């Protein structure tokens, strides 16, 4: 679902035009107040651009009759919204206790190695991978679960990492 992860064009091109605006209008209708559509709107921006820039936040604010500061406060609160471009494959690995005792940290190490990202949060030199540790993904019985963009993959082990990375590359 996620698209280009590049810096914004100059001048800024609005996200909410045409079909995207239609989709947003349909979503706005679900709530008694426009602001209720804020989280969905931010997902739409991230779907279109891969991340949410200050300019995009200002656009969302205008469309939903709120302030850019409010939108920014919301974006910085929720960890799944990216505030800067990330690698084409954004990998989230759960390392909270239940997965931790089942080898999650080894999965992280393997992924950092295999993708070339080397460090948590950094993007690999080929721009294809960013790996981060996240908190409980709600799949503790299938250790270690990871998200690659919107693909939820269960039971990842260090042994499976090589094949997984190859598949996505």
């Amino acid at each position, binding site marked *: 679902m996620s698209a280009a992860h590049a810096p914004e064009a100059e001048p800024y091109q609005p996200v909410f035009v045409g079909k995207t605006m239609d989709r947003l209008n349909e979503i706005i209708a*679900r*709530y*008694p*107040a426009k*602001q*209720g*559509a*804020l*989280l*969905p709107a*931010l*997902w739409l921006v991230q779907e279109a651009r891969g991340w949410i820039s200050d300019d995009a936040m200002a656009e969302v604010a205008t469309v*939903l009759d*709120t302030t850019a500061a*409010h939108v920014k*406060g*919301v974006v910085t*609160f*929720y*960890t*799944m*919204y990216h505030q800067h471009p990330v690698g084409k494959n954004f990998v*989230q690995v759960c*390392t*909270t*206790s*239940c997965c*931790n*005792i*089942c080898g999650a940290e080894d999965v992280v190490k393997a992924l950092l190695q295999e993708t070339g990202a080397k460090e948590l949060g950094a993007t690999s030199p080929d721009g294809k991978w960013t790996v981060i540790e*996240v*908190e*409980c*993904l*709600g*799949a*503790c*019985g*299938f*250790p270690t679960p990871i*998200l690659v963009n*919107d*693909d*939820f993959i269960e039971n990842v082990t260090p042994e499976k990492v090589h094949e997984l990375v190859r598949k996505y590359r």
Partner: protein
Amino acid sequence: MGYPQKPHPKETVVLSEYFGDPEARTYRGWVKRGGYEALKKALGMDPNAVTEEVKNSGLRGRGGAGFPTGLKWTFMPKEKKGPHYLCVNADESEPGTFKDREIMRWTPHALLEGTAIAAHAIRAEVAYIYIRGEFTEPWTVMTQALAEANAAKVFGNITIHLHRGAGAYICGEETALMNSIEGKRGNPRIKPPFPAVAGVFGKPTTINNVETLAAVPHIIKRGADWYKSLCLSSPKSTGTKLFSVCGHIQKPGNVEVTLGFPLKDVIYEMCGGMRPGRTLKACIPGGSSVPILTREETEKCLLDYEGVAAAGSLLGSGGVIVFDDSADMVYQIMRLARFYAHESCAQCTQCREGTAWTTKIMERILAGKGQMKDLDLLLDLSENMTGKTICVLSDSCATPVISGITKFRSEFEDYITGKKRPVMVA
């Protein structure tokens, strides 16, 4: 037990009957399996009668608080002066818990049906199902199921919307969930006002957990007495519950048992017990926010609200995290403290600063730079973080620290005295 295993003979299979059955996800498949009959029946009942039935069943909130569901529904205004709302808490983020995800991705219609019945009971026209952002598969499945159910027009005057979260454990707190739906930061609210008086968008609101609502169609269909009869120990704990067993266990997964079932049997019989050569050291029975049990306490514990409390912990969300003798309790408690520090919303001083400080002290101990007085400091700090904040995230961070130091003190002391080598760099 739940997908991908077959049910264990000692399970009471109600909610998990169709886990792993792809056809059950479809509207037609669900109707074929007897679905939406309860909804039809409920829509023909007086809302108060529906509430009465659920009240009599003894169903208690399955999200963690265990509050009697029917009673919660009676808090809504008797006289309807405007819109009412139902919010469904599908933000499942409590470490150790993975039951709501299964309900949504295998039996989405069960949730939709329960949601609609509950909405009818509390006279809500609109229900929002708040699904955490990371649950991409449940989102897709629920979206599809909702579309099919809407096409079949089963919900009457009730409209159900899905709302996607974006990565915040605290949004599982009911007032924070409402703020998140309103397009704000997921900050818990001070109470009063209570949600049933002024909830989402300022209107009377009830918030229920996924598992709680999934049980409602069964109660309507088969009756409160049937549900009440599902009881092995305390009469105040009725029905079945999905227990998410994970950690150092041979067969992790969800098991569905009647409340009052022995925890020992869940671990050793249903989930295959320990890995070869390993012994049980500790168990957290209800998600990471409840006290840790020692092996002795675990093996004596009955799984219902009163039973777990008697054992020294809480039933909570039913996330059973198993630690065997290879587990480093100090490291895992540090990791839990770090979890809470990441998830703190930043409103209350005790939580904002305390969770981070707790993490730092734990890391320092693991780096071999701890002192004995640090244990007193951790206990004092945890006491400061308990019972003094808007929500219980602060208390939840303190709980594993307190129970950890109390019951596994020697492991902490080993790091402090140097008997155990440091595993971190401070």
